[in-house]
């Protein structure tokens, strides 16, 4: 789990927060509400999920409960991978 979280965090920093400080993102912060990722960026995130974790994200799974924070993402990946 911790490994997944750090993978997610480094992806988010590299691709959406760029040179921001580690403190710029709490694991429970909402990506959309904090303006970290816009809703077109979410699809970029999905591309990465599918490729990195070899999972398939279904259209009905494109909901904030699954994708809108580091923790939610880690949980979602956990569920999809088992």
């Amino acid at each position, binding site marked *: 789990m911790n490994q997944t979280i750090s993978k997610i965090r480094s992806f988010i920093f*590299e*691709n*959406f*927060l*760029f*040179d*921001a400080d580690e403190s710029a993102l709490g694991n429970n912060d*909402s990506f*959309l*509400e904090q*303006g*970290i*990722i*816009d*809703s*077109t*960026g*979410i*699809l*970029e995130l999905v*591309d*990465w999920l599918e490729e990195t974790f070899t999972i398939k994200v279904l*259209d009905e799974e*494109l*909901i*904030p409960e699954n*994708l*809108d924070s580091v923790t939610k993402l880690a949980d979602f990946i956990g569920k999809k991978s088992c």
Partner: protein
Amino acid sequence: MCGIAGFFNISSDNSPGQNDLERMIYPVAHRGPDGYGFYVGNEAGLAHARLSIIDLEGGWQPIHNEDKSLWVIFNGEIFNYRELRKELEAKGHRFYTNSDTEVIVHLYEENREECLSRLNGQFAIALYDVREKALILARDRMGIRPLFYVQHEGLFYFASEIKSLFAANSSLPREMNLEVLREVFTLWMPGGTETIFKGVHQLEAGHWARISVNKGFVSKEYWDIPFGIGVSGEFHKEADYAEKLRELLIDSVRLRLRADVPVGAYLSGGLDSSTITSLIHHYTDNPLKTFSVTFSDRVYDEQAQQKEMVDFLATDHHVEHCTYEKIGESFPDVIWHTEMPILRTAPAPLYLLSSLVRKNHYKVVLTGEGADEILGGYDIFKEAKIRAFIKKDLTSSIRPMLLKRLYPYLALSPTKSAEFAKIFFNTDASIDDLFYAHMPRWKTTGGTSVFFAEKLKRANVHHVVDKLISRFSHKLVGLDYFSRAQYLEAKLLLGNYLLSSQGDRMAMAHSVEGRFPFLDHRLVEFACTIPPNMKMKVLNEKNILKKAMDNLLPKSIVKRKKQPYMAPDILSFFGGKEPEYLNYYLSPQMVKEAGFFNPRAVEQLLSKCRKKVRQGFRENMAFVGILSTQIVYEKFVKNFRIDMPNRLDNIKIIS
């Protein structure tokens, strides 16, 4: 159509002269390649670069009145000049040319600044009143033609483009305005009359200004888009509105075909340009030459629709085919002309298109801008309508699904997931918020601040909205949210971007004049009386225009879902061969030296772009915005240079 420049001496001991005027007019020679004219008076100097369109032999400027007490230079067209001239001649005025310019001096003799409301046209005017020792500047109602000014050491300088101001006087500071840069990275364009350069302003659309030794600079509005006049219009039925709209459009097109050179038309394949080409075909005897942009990237391409119109009207059609590389390569030149950072590459294909027009020996094109703003075409209006509908019943799980109907044309749509779209579009916001419709866009765009250097982060972000409130609240309060959104789009997107960065500057870069039938003020005034629920009927945009054109266009064009004109952004630089200049403008040293962006963040964005992954709105806007800001910095602040010949060729008049 032309370029103008000049000065007025308010209180300086060193008055500029002919040489200074030549230095000012040369940088805008692309606006008027046919010859120059100058006038130097006691307080003022006027310079003109001419693109001959009306009265090819006699229309050289500056032009004066009977006793030479008024001198005018003018960029643009007065479409109703024949009618005005008749009227003025009946009152005893004598004309020495056949040009539209000359009506201005005589009309000014009659009505002073009030004469502006008699003009149907697109213009930037500078008129020197010798007796009153005053300079009068004016701009057309919608802001089609540009006019910039700056005051420096007791001198007032004005010009069609900012480069002329900087060329006028090397002691003029050339510094970028951080607050305006923040506006661009929030609103997509400056929110007011300030430009990206400190101290340089544009005269606002629908305004005149009087500059005199005694009173300095005084400016006044003479017209504004009359949203909110509180009238629901003279008709009850959609069909009546449609008929009146068609009548006005036909007349507007006819007036805009007045020229002593042939007139062509841009054809995108959408409803607006198809409307104009169809009206030219059906209601005038102008031989129809059309010009289109096509894209190798199919997401942006509208070739099929263009072909349908070309076959329907049998026009003589010409195509500029845009590849990623062509857009990328032309981008630095595009920015030399926009004189402003931009967040989209969309002006670049129009820059290439105007070059094609010129190669075909055409100087004038009709084009469809303005229809979306005044007749309710934009997705942002639709978006606001759906958000308001969801807000009425927040418990409904079906209503948010409507958001999925937005942006069907985008490869990466923000509405693929209704649940995300709900957050994205902030469906909780109150529709009474002054900027209700625009807030989601501004929030997404504001996300680009992740690339800012400390200095730009510190530029007051609250000022962006505060300034809009102080500029617009008295115009917006009391209007419904749909009309508020329309007003703002007309003032900001249309006025400060589409007509300028994407319009005038791209066409004039290749000496081509754009004319805009939808922006005839009679038509704009009429459109403001159409009830919003008729303009966009349920979610059917530009409903009245579609009704008006129903029998004059192929059904598929009328029924087609709106696809806004866009061009590939990041892909234009990385989809094909990467332009070499990226390593120059975006090098860590240059980014650091300019001081606006965080060099490490820019480097990371660059390497992300090189991976060619698909990226969202924010990164696309950020990349184009950062690159264009760096180009503006390099070309206008760091290395501003005009290579001027020793003598100007083609000087026609010195008065």
